[in-house]
């Protein structure tokens, strides 16, 4: 267990912005997590705490397992045959092991939502895109749907741009707007954690900046886990950073510490561009 905070429930870390110490609760605790695609082991003995209402970035070279780890959190791997989880991802406050076979993946996905690499709005109206997560769980009340769709679109900084054309297809929006629509869709269900899988890799720099601002602003109310191949992005948006390599967690700690004083040689090599 390298670089993992000692206290399992809460920890005091210097906030990167102010330098003052903030108390944070543990939202989720990964314990000896192994993951297999068939016989190939993609994650090896991961131990890590995810802090509530913070942005945690997962970085590392291609194939290091960062996306695989992210997708364990909403059981996306269950859609692929011949995959297997070992170990635990405990979700607090109720201490449920969300990768246990006894826990229905749908229950997990109702609590933890996800934004994908390429914007993937449904070929339906903007409104229906955001409302879908509520519709699948049986929300029928029009007033409630309207209110939550608006709140989610505001949360994704898209409301002002689309409020007069909620009936238009979501696929007609620009790439950056589509990704914010996907963020609204992920927020509409009031998730406890939002997962971002390289959310800006298909976007131009301006759209990227707006998504990054959004992620930073979200962190006050929701726990964010983001995979990025862009180290500057990790530095800009995250409070904690985990560096992974070949399926292992190499180093994990407050972002400002890791970027200025990495403890591991491999982290330092990666951050300075010597490999990856």
């Amino acid at each position, binding site marked *: 267990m390298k670089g993992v905070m000692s206290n399992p429930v809460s920890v005091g870390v210097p906030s990167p912005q102010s330098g003052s110490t903030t108390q944070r609760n543990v939202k989720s605790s990964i314990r000896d997590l192994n993951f297999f695609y068939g016989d190939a082991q993609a994650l090896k003995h991961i131990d890590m705490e995810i802090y509530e209402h913070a942005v945690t970035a997962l970085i590392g070279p291609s194939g290091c397992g960062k996306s695989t780890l992210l997708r364990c959190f909403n059981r*996306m791997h269950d*859609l692929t*045959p011949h995959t297997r989880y070992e170990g635990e991802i405990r979700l607090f406050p109720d201490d449920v092991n969300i990768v246990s076979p006894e826990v229905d993946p749908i229950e997990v996905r109702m609590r933890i*939502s996800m934004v*994908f690499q390429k914007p*993937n709005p449904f070929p339906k109206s903007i409104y229906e895109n955001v409302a*879908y*997560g509520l519709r*699948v769980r049986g929300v029928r009340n029009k007033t409630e749907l309207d209110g939550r769709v608006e709140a989610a679109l505001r949360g994704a900084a898209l409301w002002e741009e689309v409020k007069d054309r909620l009936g238009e297809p979501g696929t007609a929006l620009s790439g950056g707007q589509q990704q914010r629509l996907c963020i609204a869709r992920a927020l509409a*269900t009031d998730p406890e954690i939002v997962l971002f899988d390289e959310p800006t890799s298909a976007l131009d720099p301006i759209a990227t900046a707006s998504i990054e601002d959004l992620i930073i602003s979200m962190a006050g109310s929701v726990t964010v886990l983001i995979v990025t191949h862009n180290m500057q992005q990790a530095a800009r948006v995250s409070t904690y950073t985990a560096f992974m390599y070949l399926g292992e967690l190499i180093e994990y700690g407050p972002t400002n510490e890791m970027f200025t004083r990495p403890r591991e040689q491999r982290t330092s090599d990666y951050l300075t561009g010597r490999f990856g």
Partner: protein
Amino acid sequence: MASLSPPLAIDASHATVADIRANVAQRRRWDLVFAVLGLLATSIGVVTLLALFIDLVMDGYQRLTPDFFLSFPSRRASEAGILSAWVGTCLVMLVTAVVGVPLAVSAGLYLEEYAPRNWLTTVIEINVSNLAAVPSIVYGLLALGLFVYALGFGQSILSAGLTLALMIMPIIVVATREAVRAVPHTIREAAYAVGATRWQVTRDHVLPYSIPGIATGVIIGLARAIGETAPLITIGALTFIAYLPNPPLTTTPPFVNFDWLWSGFTVLPIQMFNWVSRPGTAFHANAAAAGIVIVVLTLLMNGFAIFLRYRLRKRINW
């Protein structure tokens, strides 16, 4: 004429413009040769079909009067019509569509979205594709044994509709699976990620987005069924029917009736076949006229399939 020998190799460092032009001209000639051959091959197909259709129209067009559509068959060629045939075709197609489409679409969705990937599924998939290529007379024999005798449906519209449904199911299953497979995986992931069940993903996304492809497959399947003769003769279609089945819709409650399912029947291609096999040119004109009706019906259905695909696909872009 210039030779068609392989072009003279050109050594770029010493080539003059004249050499280069000669070389290009020589290679261009092969372009022309293939273009001409290709055009010829295409025309042979198109012109032959067109000639057949024009011949059909020339032979049959004077018979295409309203009376022709409103008369029963008759021993006098000039009084004979296709009323019982086109009514039979419509009713048989109704049974075929109502039975075949839901079964085939469900099977296609199941195989693509639900079925686990194992050897059994693979065997089923290969066999479904193979069934699409089984000669229709074989379906006729199967239906004769199963529907007509074993299940006791007799030589009825019901048996005919079920036979054709069986025959076009593989076509629709294959079309459904292709359409379903064209729905991007990212869309499914998006729906699963907000907590949708497999059925919700299928009902709300996969099925609606693959409707254009499914509809095309359905219409192509029905267009094939409409011209089918062999299996229906096998199960005992009549060739001379001077009555109509009881209409499916009535003016008195309960407004529907299903007697027609058990009625004897004939269909357009069988009526046509019957007229072709009679001596005398008068009946041949009738056959040609019925042929025109079938061809136009088929072309209309295919045209509608193309229109649907074009219109519905325009609404969906990923």
